[in-house]
């Protein structure tokens, strides 16, 4: 079990992590979600021992990890891209961690082959890593991180550089793998679909702090504050007459006798719906997801209605 308490990391004067408290239970996948610059990668680097904390503790099963150098922490770390060793072939990359732990060569090779099969790259042993496609490289990186059976697997935007179709396929595979191997994992991403699909719990980060921590459903349905709501794509407004609230674009409907009047200022086609930007009288623009045959055009006057049970009140 990983326990992070009051962790603070600085780069010179800049505070990268500002008092992080987080527990990752055995076999649990926690996703760290946030925009770039929110400190999520720094959190992984600190847990890996690559960034010294100014303050706070990182513990594993009650033992303080602070004085333990990275190479003795027995963790796995996988970056977004470019971190396969270019001067080694596929199997040498996967077996690297085993070799560092003085596993005999034949056993290391056998284990590496096993993992290559696990990630769907059986037969790739002696390919050069520079010849692999982006998806294949990420599978090799995953196999390499898993080979020494790390007690904690950390992934930093592992799917960030891949195209959408591949990303969605690998997301399903990763989820399966996490469950099958019972991995304890910290998964950093800026994509909430990815975080919600993979994680048992989600930690949303903002300016070096955890803005909200909860299950994917909790976070998605009850954003704790304005930052989280906006980050997840909610409208934040106080034009609905019940104080400052967050409301999802698909919770707003166009109704001829709806209570809110506005004018369509932009219209974007989004595969299964249209996203309208509706400027409401003496208020901000709201995003409204609309389906059906009759989509208002830019310039049309519309009236909006909202179901009160999907409006999330926000703290002032």
């Amino acid at each position: 079990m990983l326990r992070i308490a009051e962790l603070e990391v600085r780069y010179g004067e800049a505070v990268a992590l500002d008092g992080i408290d987080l527990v990752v239970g055995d076999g649990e996948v926690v996703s760290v979600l946030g925009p770039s610059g929110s400190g999520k990668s720094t959190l992984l680097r600190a847990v890996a021992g690559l960034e010294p904390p100014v303050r706070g503790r990182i513990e594993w099963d009650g033992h303080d990890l602070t004085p333990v150098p990275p190479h003795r922490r027995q963790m796995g770390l996988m970056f977004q891209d470019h971190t396969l060793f270019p001067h080694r072939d596929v199997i040498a990359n996967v077996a690297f961690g085993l070799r560092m732990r003085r596993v005999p060569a034949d056993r290391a090779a056998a284990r590496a082959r096993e993992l290559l099969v696990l990630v769907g790259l059986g037969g790739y042993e002696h390919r050069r890593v520079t010849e692999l496609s982006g998806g294949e490289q990420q599978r090799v990186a995953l196999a390499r991180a898993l080979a020494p059976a790390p007690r904690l697997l950390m992934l930093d935007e592992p799917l960030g550089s891949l195209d959408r179709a591949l990303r969605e396929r690998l997301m399903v595979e990763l989820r399966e793998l996490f469950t099958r191997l019972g991995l304890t994992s910290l998964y950093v991403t800026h994509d909430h679909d990815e975080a919600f699909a993979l994680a048992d719990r989600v930690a949303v980060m903002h300016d070096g702090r955890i803005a909200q921590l909860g299950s994917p459903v909790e976070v998605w349905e009850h954003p704790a504050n304005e930052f989280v709501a906006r980050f997840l794509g909610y409208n934040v407004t106080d034009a609905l007459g019940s104080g400052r609230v967050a409301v999802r674009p698909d919770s707003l409907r166009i109704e001829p006798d709806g209570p809110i009047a506005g004018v369509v200022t932009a219209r974007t086609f989004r595969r299964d719906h249209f996203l309208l930007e509706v400027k409401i009288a003496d208020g901000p623009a709201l995003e409204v997801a609309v389906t059906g045959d009759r989509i208002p055009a830019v310039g049309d006057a519309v009236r909006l209605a909202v179901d009160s049970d999907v409006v999330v009140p926000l703290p002032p």
Partner: protein
Amino acid sequence: MRAQAATLRADARIGRRRLVRGLMLAVPIAFLGVFFVYPVASIVGRGLTPGGSLDLSPLADVVTDARFRGVAWFTIWQATVSAALTVLVALPGAYVFARYEFRGKRLVRAAVLVPFVLPTVVVGSAFLAVLGDGGPLGFLGLDQSFAAILVAHVFFNYAVVVLVVGGLWAHLDPRQEDAARVLGADRWQTFRSVTLPSLRPAIAAAAAIVFLFDFTSFGVILILGGPRYSTLETEIYRQTVQFLDLPLAAALSIVQMAAVVVVLLVAGRAQGRRAEALRLRAVAETSRRPRTTGERAVVGLNLAVMAVLLGGPIAVLVERSFDTTGGYGLGFYRALSELRRTSTIFVPPVEAVRNSLVFACAATVIALVIGGLAAFAIAGPHRSPRAAGLDTLLLLPLGVSAVTIGFGFLIALDKRPFDVRASPVLIPIAHALVAAPFVARVLIPVLRSIDQRLRDTAAVLGASPGRVWREIDLPIVARALLVAAGFAFAISLGEFGATIFIARPDYPTLPVVIFRLLRQPGTLNFGAAMAASVILMAVTTLAILAIERFRFADIGEF
């Protein structure tokens, strides 16, 4: 309590790392201190306090004397004209290498590199072979002329412009030029408004390097300029060796060093602006075969210029080394082992070949250790913030000129605590001093190119810091190390400016012997100089061919 103990252990870890880093910095700093800073300080001391107390008269003599002012002026003037001419002639060549594919390109590239690494003495010999008595262009009467010096300098530094400017050019995204063309710019406007501004930092850097090389040019001017033309460098040599006026030579050295510092500062500013973000592409995406007649003509014309300018003198040199009075033969080569001892050459020239090879091996080892440690301290993991100063210190021997180094050795290392002037060990040390900056220049970009996350990944996978170095840094820089070794070897083989001051008559190097042979009258001596130059050129070229074999597509930051 536990937290405190943990912090202490973490501190110990950081402390150990600092110690290793400090040791890595200490070796090159000590080496540079004893063999560079101390001799240079001795020159300054000798120049400012010739009689033991402060006496500015030698310096005043140098600054006010019309002849020395003429020498200083000529030094600047010839370097400026040479550098401008080199950029003008070589820029089209850089373009051709950067943008076009043609058969034999690799070979031509390697061949273009050869003049740059040729020993200055060989360059001098080659142009003497072409322009001197009995040479194919002897009728022009250009022996001992300004023009001869200029052409030799262009010959010498053509490769610098091709490497520095062409290197960047090859990585420039041609789609930016395409975008300008689509926006309505013609070829010339595109070049002026898109390509040239991107290249400007590289051109400035190349021009600065060439200017510096020409400013400190020694062998070429000594051989081709004769008594008519002298620069600060040759004047330091003449005052030391012919007139034995050490205080005056020291004063000249001070002026020379001050000038070099100014040039380096200007060059540094030009290079600093290189940091702007350019969209760089892999070379494979930016070059293609010439398609139109015009493009083929540009490529052909440039290849012709290279063949005549770079290939011509070398061909004539080789030809004349075989052209004995009794027809073509090996007479001059045989003469290398048979020539009588003279007052300036105590041993048969052939022994100089052996000396040169031994010194070159030793110099390579020293340069790799010093340059390698420095590069690692500057650009390796956990680089020290103070290592930037080492970077500058390391570059100084390059700028301060070989003649100054040789002269400094001569006057500094002949008394305690460093009474080693009589030792032949000084020669490889001087060579290593010249070569170490090159070694570092080759290694630093490769070390910098290693993504820190590769090291992080290896560490997280269980590699200790030492193991990370062995598993990641070393294999990746291995090929660059071989390239650096080749450069160091070639530099040592051809080093002349420092060696001429410290080589003892019984341990001459090949360049020293060639110079002495050229100084002596007679066809046999001239022919033997040609033959010795061909041998030196052949050995150097072999070292360079070895480099080209191991060359990464992406290194070469000179």
